[in-house]
């Protein structure tokens, strides 16, 4: 594996996640449909947000770094609601 050629999937496989059953991110796709910037798509370091054909946003919470970038760059008031995963779950960095 040499740098620069690593797939995003391989990149994320280096991180330990203890996935909980409850989604700690909520997205209101209705609001997203009227969003022209969709800044979350590029800004999320874990690449969790994917635009859909109908203008909405598809997301997953399982590989979330819990950084908070998504809701801070979101310009559609309240489109992304974000809290912490349940105790003991979520990302578990070893070399942070």
């Amino acid at each position: 594996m040499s740098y620069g050629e690593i797939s995003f999937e391989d990149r994320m496989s280096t991180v330990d996640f203890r996935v909980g059953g409850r989604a700690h991110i909520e997205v209101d796709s209705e609001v997203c449909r009227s969003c022209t910037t969709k800044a979350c798509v590029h800004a999320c370091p874990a690449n969790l947000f994917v635009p859909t054909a109908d203008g909405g946003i598809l997301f997953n919470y399982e590989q979330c770094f819990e950084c908070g970038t998504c809701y801070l760059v979101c310009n559609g008031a309240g489109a992304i609601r974000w809290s912490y995963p349940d105790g003991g779950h979520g990302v578990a960095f070893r070399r942070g």
Partner: protein
Amino acid sequence: MRFDAVVVGAGPAGSAAALELARAGHSVALVERGPYPGAKNVYGGVVYGRILDELLPGWWERLPVQRWITRRSTMLLTGAQALTVDFRTQDWGRPPYNGATAFRAELDAWLADQAVDAGAVLVPSTVVTGLRRDGGGRVTGVTTDRPDGDLTAGIVIACDGVNSFLAKEAGLYEQDPEHVTLGVKETLALPRAAIEERFGVSGLDGVDIEILGCTGDIPGGGFLYTNLDSLSVGVVLALPGLAAAKIRPEEVIAGLKRHPAIAPLVRGGELLEYSAHLIPEGGYRHLPRLVGDGLLVAGDAAALCLAAGIWLEGVNFALGSGMYAGRAAAAALAAGDTSARGLAGYRRMLAGSFVLADHRKLRRVPDLVLSRRVQRQYPGMICDVVQGLFTVDNPRPKPGLRRLLRQSARAHGIRRRDLLRDGLVGLRSFG
């Protein structure tokens, strides 16, 4: 359950606060949402331990260090240029030391151990979901996501990090994306021998490289640190710039790693872990309120990260603010007054120490460092001056420095007025 104090978040701020409270004889719960302290934490990679002299004397014998920083470089990059100011001293490689690289899962866990040894109760894998208050709005404890897990306390210290939901709930903090940056980091495996050769160090000596001009149109900077047998390389990106740029954070790291000055240093390093975290970089002018009735805020939750160009420090400010929060809380508990007035000693202690003094002195620097001129114009201007200085252009005679500076400033669209003004801000801040 009732404690004298509940500290939320077992990072450096929380563990320092819990340690001081426990030492003063108070019962204290140290609540951590991760499975272990440090699980949720990421930083560039260097901790400055001087404040630990006061908190944990002889810390350098026990702190889980990767390497001691004996060499500090500041780099200015353009597409094909690099100017490095490089300093090394062996003084930093022996007691009492200066800075060290360390992993947060090890560093934070060790700090929490010190609080536990002093008598604090560590409660991991538990999210604090909100504040409990009495009719008058005074904080009386916290709610958690554990069944019957609410905790009652005379005082709550919020060390719950950059997104501090507790400081926001208490109305102390309006988190503004304008003053938040995203740090993304790769930890790359590299044999010790390769690190020693590439970075010119031996034993446990290590290198800290701070980089300006490597983040394209996004205001920010880069870093490269040596661990024992790995490197930490990454970038810090201003959120508004990142949101507008339509480029992914890991692509900015990839660009840095491809730069001719950086590529030979990181070549062949295999990715061990990819990580990311927000950084509160607004500085003194954008600090939240730090004290409420029954509530103190410390560390990143208090936005106490120093992002002042040549100085990038956070863990020491977390340790310092946590330590003073713990002392102020202990004094308030002993005096029987944990109202905002009874806790006012916290702000005074911070103002009388490096924690607020450094921030106050450097209050103009965060805006300057992230300005368009410092980000997009000065690196190129300075590199061109140096290139002009060292390009032998015979048969033409050597140009004078003043002419080079004038030419380069003009070529990069920099007005003399702005240069003088920025120089003055620099002088007032760093002078």
